[in-house]
């Protein structure tokens, strides 16, 4: 099969012929139909998050089951599925207490002494987050996918595989936004827009979108923002505090920067909660004013929207098909696998929402 292989950080990926192993007992071979190009892929391409190389990036996809391992009963050939990097073992403390997205068990990967799922001429290709979706085929653990209804368009379904689940999940699960709350979201990329959409679905009375790109603020309005602030003014915190007359009940940071994480905390009212969704580079420290804790302000992380994706993703599909979840506007372009480097460069500019790779069928 062909795949976009990353051999060196900050260098373009090359389309190469990659060998893929046969499904093990609990593995599923998936033929992706669509794969989103996500800003998180960029973090691993530019090295702000280290990863073993060579690898095949991509972690947001939807496709069709091609073959299943002998012990797999959940799906069969031909089923439509969304993949998810929150592969869960199902029996560790995190899984059994309902925190499947925090499962750390390595058993959903192949053990180091076993043949790797992906290789080139005998050389191991490290599977990215147990998925590697910039490829014509994916070999994944059965707990890294969910079945979805077949009337769901695959390109929209792919977005649910990461950005939607991360953004909407942060609002529903990590923060637990109540109807009538005042919400601000910093960063209007795919995840931030999903958080805005999620806050609107949750019934927030005010949803403030903060970004430095006007076109993204327009998109934010289309998916549920009631107010927008262009942070180029340099005083986004002050503007939010003025607009809300005292601060937000919930803020969400969807960029991954120290400065914006601190701003998310500064935008809170007393008792408010800031949720950091963005991937802040390894080694970066975040500074807060200690006295603010006397006001019961809280700050927390969110990983993949604290998802239980086998429950969440079919619900998000229903939300899309019933008009509540706005995924059409999230896709700025459909591309071929060979154009994946161009799509990642476009993400760097911050001007476009999301490119989705469509595979030949």
């Amino acid at each position, binding site marked *: 099969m062909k795949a976009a292989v990353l051999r060196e950080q900050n260098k373009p990926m090359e389309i190469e012929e990659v060998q893929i192993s046969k499904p093990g007992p609990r593995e599923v071979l998936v033929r992706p139909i669509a794969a989103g190009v996500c800003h998180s892929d960029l973090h691993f391409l530019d090295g702000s998050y280290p*990863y073993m190389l060579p690898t095949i990036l991509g972690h947001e996809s939807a496709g069709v089951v091609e073959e299943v391992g002998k012990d797999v009963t959940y799906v069969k050939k031909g089923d439509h599925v969304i993949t998810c990097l929150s592969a869960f073992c199902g029996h560790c403390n995190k899984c059994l207490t309902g925190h499947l997205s925090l499962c750390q068990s390595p058993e959903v990967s192949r053990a180091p002494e076993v043949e790797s799922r992906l290789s080139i001429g005998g050389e191991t290709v490290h599977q990215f987050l147990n998925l590697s979706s910039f490829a014509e085929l994916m070999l994944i653990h059965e707990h890294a996918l969910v079945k979805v209804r077949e009337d769901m368009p695959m390109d929209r379904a792919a977005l649910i595989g990461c950005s939607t689940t991360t953004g909407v999940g942060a609002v529903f699960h990590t923060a637990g936004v109540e109807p009538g709350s005042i919400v601000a979201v910093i960063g209007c990329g795919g995840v931030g827009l999903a958080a805005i959409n999620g806050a609107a679905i949750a019934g927030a009375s005010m949803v403030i979108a903060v970004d430095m790109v006007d076109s993204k603020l327009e998109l934010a309005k289309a998916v549920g923002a009631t107010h927008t602030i262009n942070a180029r003014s340099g005083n986004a915190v002050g503007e939010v505090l003025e607009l809300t007359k005292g601060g937000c009940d919930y803020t969400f940071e969807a960029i991954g920067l120290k400065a914006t994480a601190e701003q998310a905390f500064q935008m809170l009212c007393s008792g408010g909660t800031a949720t950091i969704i963005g991937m802040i580079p390894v080694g970066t420290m975040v500074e807060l004013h200690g006295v603010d804790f006397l006001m019961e302000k809280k700050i927390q992380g969110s990983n993949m929207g604290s998802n239980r994706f086998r429950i969440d993703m079919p619900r998000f599909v229903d939300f899309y098909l019933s008009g509540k979840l706005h995924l059409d506007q999230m896709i700025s372009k459909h591309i071929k696998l060979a154009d994946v480097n161009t799509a990642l460069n476009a993400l760097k500019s911050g001007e476009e929402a999301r490119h989705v790779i469509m595979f030949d069928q």
Partner: protein
Amino acid sequence: MATERIKSEITGTVWKILLAEGDAIQVESELMILESMKMEIPVESAVSGRIQSILVAPGDAVDEDQDLAIIEID
């Protein structure tokens, strides 16, 4: 002889150790792979030298800033 301690940048689990005590190692060479939140994270040496000791084993849980190995600097 001067030594350098290689530390973990992240909380995770030792997935695979790629070199052994006594092996030569170069700057930016990979010594081991950690797994954290399903990510395979390489641990690289900041110096060239020889591996004096490896302080962890596959499957060990490691904390951020924990010593993983000691390198005798060339």
